[in-house]
Structures are given as C-alpha cells and as structure tokens.
C-alpha cells in the first residue's frame, strides 16, 4: 500500500504561488529611542551595569546578566574611536546578485565599551583586526534618529 502515488507526468507537479506581504514598523524602545536621539546629536552612548561592570552598546534599558535596570545614571558616552575586532567583505547582495562594489562590514569595540557594534567600514582599503577606527557621522541636517545617522567607521587618522 504505497503512501505516495507516482506522478507520471511532470506537468502534473503543481505548486501554488503566493506572497507574504507584511510590513514591520518597529519602535526603538525606551533605551533605543534615547540612543538614536544621541546619534542624531553625533554622540554614541552605552549603558554600564554597575553590578556586572559591563558596558552595552547600543545602550540598553536593563542588564541581561543580572536583569537589573540600567537607569539614566548608567548612561555613558563611548567612542567615537574604537578597535576593529573582526571584518568581512560582501560580494553577494541579499537577493543573490553580485554586490558591486563590495561592501565591508566590521565589528567595532568602541573605546569604553565591552559589547561590539556592527557597522559599515568606509574610506579604507586594507582592514586588519586590531586596527584603530573612528566613527563617521552624516552631516547634522541629514540625520533622522537612525542607525544610518552613522555612515560607518574609517581608519583612525594618526
């Protein structure tokens, strides 16, 4: 008693096509709202848990290690320079096409932070882990309270 009836003709193989059409509209949250407004002013903030001695970037409202609150007194400015922890170069776009020119993304540990931030690496040719980098912001008039208010990170000018 076969479970599968053999399909004799390929044109009988059917698929129903459909699209899932939704849009996510995400609020940044209590901490995220304040953090993005900081970027808009050209500042990068972290929150430092006094119990765990760990500084989160982007800033968070609570510490995931001890679940304690991270109130206003825990906000500190970090960066704008930092150390490149790791990097990658993307040659393929999300839709599978070639990415020309390639994009470079890095993990940056901003000075004063423990957590690393992921962002674009720009204005550079050679990237090596451990090198010093600095944040590059959009001109103030173009900022909107978005992670894109940061254009990316470039090699720290000596």
């Amino acid at each position, binding site marked *: 008693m076969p479970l599968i009836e053999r399909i004799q003709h390929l044109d009988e193989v059917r698929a*129903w096509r*459909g699209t*899932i*059409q*939704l*849009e*996510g*509209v*995400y*609020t*940044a*949250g*209590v*901490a*995220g*709202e304040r953090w993005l407004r900081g970027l808009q002013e050209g500042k990068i903030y972290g929150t430092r848990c006094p119990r765990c001695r760990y500084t989160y970037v982007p800033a*968070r*409202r*609570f510490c*995931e*290690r*001890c*679940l304690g*609150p991270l109130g206003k007194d825990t906000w500190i400015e970090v960066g704008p320079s930092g150390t490149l922890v790791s990097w990658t170069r993307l040659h393929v776009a999300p839709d599978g096409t070639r990415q020309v020119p390639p994009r470079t993304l890095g993990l940056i540990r901003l000075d004063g932070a423990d957590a690393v931030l992921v962002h674009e690496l720009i204005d550079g040719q050679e990237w090596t882990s451990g090198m010093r980098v600095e944040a590059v912001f959009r001109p103030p008039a173009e900022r909107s309270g978005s992670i894109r208010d940061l254009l990316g990170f470039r090699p720290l000018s000596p």
Partner: protein
Amino acid sequence: MAGRRVAIVGAGMTKFVRRALETGQELAWEAASKALESCEMTLDQIDAVVLGSAPDAFDGVHMKVEYLSPGAGAWGKPTIRGYVGGGTGVFAAIQGWYHIASGMFDTVLVVCEEKMSSCHPHPQAAFNYIFDHTLERPLGPNLLWIFALEMNAYMTKYGLTKRDIAMVAVKNKRNAADHPAAQLGDPHITIEDVLNSEVLAWPVQRLDVSPTSDGAVAIVMAAEHIARRVTNKPVWVEGVGWSLDTQYWTNRDLSYPTYVEEAARKAYAMAGIREPRKEIHIVEPYDPFDYKELHHLEGLLLADRGKAAELIALGIANRDGDMPVTPSGGLLGVGNPIAAAGLMKVAEIFWQLRGEAGKRQVPGQPRRGLAQAWGDLMQVGTVIILGI
C-alpha cells in the same frame, strides 16, 4: 499526582496597550523583573526559563524567543519556547510545571510576550498565513472568517441570540475596569453598545472581539522545598492538560470544542476532581471573542452544551456569583497580546487565590481556580488548575 509538587510563587506584568514604545525585549524585562521582585527573588536563583510567544509575524522578528531572551532572564540558562498559537500562554505555565515536576529544575521563570503593533498594515494580516496555502488562501480569507463561521455554527445549533452572547463582552469589559493593566475596561458598557457596534464579519461585531495589544506577563514557579521558603502563600499546580484536534478544521464539529474537553478531562483527573462545577471556584476561560468564553465553559464541562449563556444571564458568572468567570476582565477587557493574555489568566488565578486581586477580588476565599487557553488553527486546548 505526577512528579514533584510545583507552585507559582510570583507574578508580574506590563500594562496592555495598543502600541508600546517599549521593544518586545523591554516588555519581557518589565514583566520578568516585576515577577522576580514580587517574590523577592533574583535572576541567579532561577534555574531555567520558559518563553512563550505567538507567531513571529506579529513582532516581525524571526526566532522571536531568541530575540526576547535577554529580557526574559535567559542569558546563560536552559531556555525553551513553547508554541501552540493562542494556547501558548497557559501552555508556557504547563511547561514550567513539567520542568520542575520532572526533577530537572527547582525554579523556572515563565515569560510570555507579544508586540502586535509592529505588524502592518494590521496585525490581523499576520493571520492570513494560518490558512491552507493552496485550498483556502486563494479565496482571500481573513481571520475573522473562521471565528464568524464557528460562532454562527454555535449560535444556530443551540438557538442562541446575539444578545445572549453580548452579555459576555459586557461582563468582561466591566470587570476589566478594575484591572490596573487593562486596555479596554469600561464600567458603563451596555449590551446595546455591543449589539450596535460595527459589523465586521457577521455575526461578529466590533465589540465581540478582543483588541490587538502589546504586553508581557511573567510568573515564577518553584519546587515545593523552595516555594515554602520563598512565600507563605504558594499557589500549587494541581492539574494540567492539553490536547490538539485535527488541522482539517472544515471537517470538525464547529459547535463544540472537543479538544478543550480532552484537555480538561486530563487536568481534572490529575487534580482528582470529579465534580468540576462544584470543585472549581473561579474560571478564566479564553475569551478572544465573547462566544468563545461560552464555548470554552462548555468544553470545560462547567456548563451543559448550549447552556453556558445561562451562567452569564443568571449572574452566576459575575465576580460575586457562585462561579465567577473571567474576573480579570479577560482578553475582551484587559487586552489580547496573544501569549501574554493566556499567562495573564494564570496570573489572575494566582492573585485571586492569594487574596491579592484588589478591587477584582472574588469574595468567599476561593481555593481552586482554572485557567484555559485555546489556539493554533482553532484546535488546541490548554488547561491548568491551581489551588491553595
């Protein structure tokens, strides 16, 4: 009773709102930290975490529980996500129970969250994808269809009127007026308000339906030796049950939730309950739509088939009645952040049995309560019985 004794020792929640500034993570943290604070426990005293959340499509975050985990205290801890659609909130508490009853863990933090406001153009849209992709979705269905079809089948079979059913919405929205977390409490709502509200999918009208909401709820569960140390008012898990009906919903008897009965019978057997109508003092049945409360009371064997509306009409289901039903205000009144709403019902029984429900407190020192949720493609029943 199977396994070790397990108690709920703490509970906390966020207010339920239409749209919160807080992220899902922050909502989870608000509820989780309140629950821990309520029993004066800290995260390092928690052995494991159970997270409940309904479809990822609401928050618009895939692997939602991994995303939520920092706010739920799951950092570096054994963590699991239970997911049975709308049944998730009660199921998460059941999972917390078996984590501890099994002997594997002594303390579990159970957190349920939903942030439906992220989903555009309307959270309703996320439900389009529960329908069969080949045989149903091409017809352009929406979620209300399935409820409306079930409600009509139920009304017609038992000769119930819209008025019979609207009484549930009135009772629950009035009860919710006394709930500090409620989104839609209304002490003055009348049956006429419900009957005159906009028709969405007849017989379903606007005020027959719970709102979409953002919110989170958390409870702390503990093994007996810990529970007695943490609190002098532990609320014990006496019975649990869950069951799933066929996904072929158009092949089912839509007028009766067999799966709820199956879940309830398991829970009653475990709790040693022979006469549920006498032995259950408070009920929090799942009420995303007003008729569902009636449907579920019947499935829970707390009313004869087609007769649950009489409990409402005669005032038996009121807070000061013989068997208070949804004293919290339910999904219709407090709000419906899906998974969180189910766990809110468990938390309500916890507060009621401890005598801590404030203005909503049911008189007569109730000793045993039941919370139930329901979900997936209208096919799962999840039941928990709590007692002191």
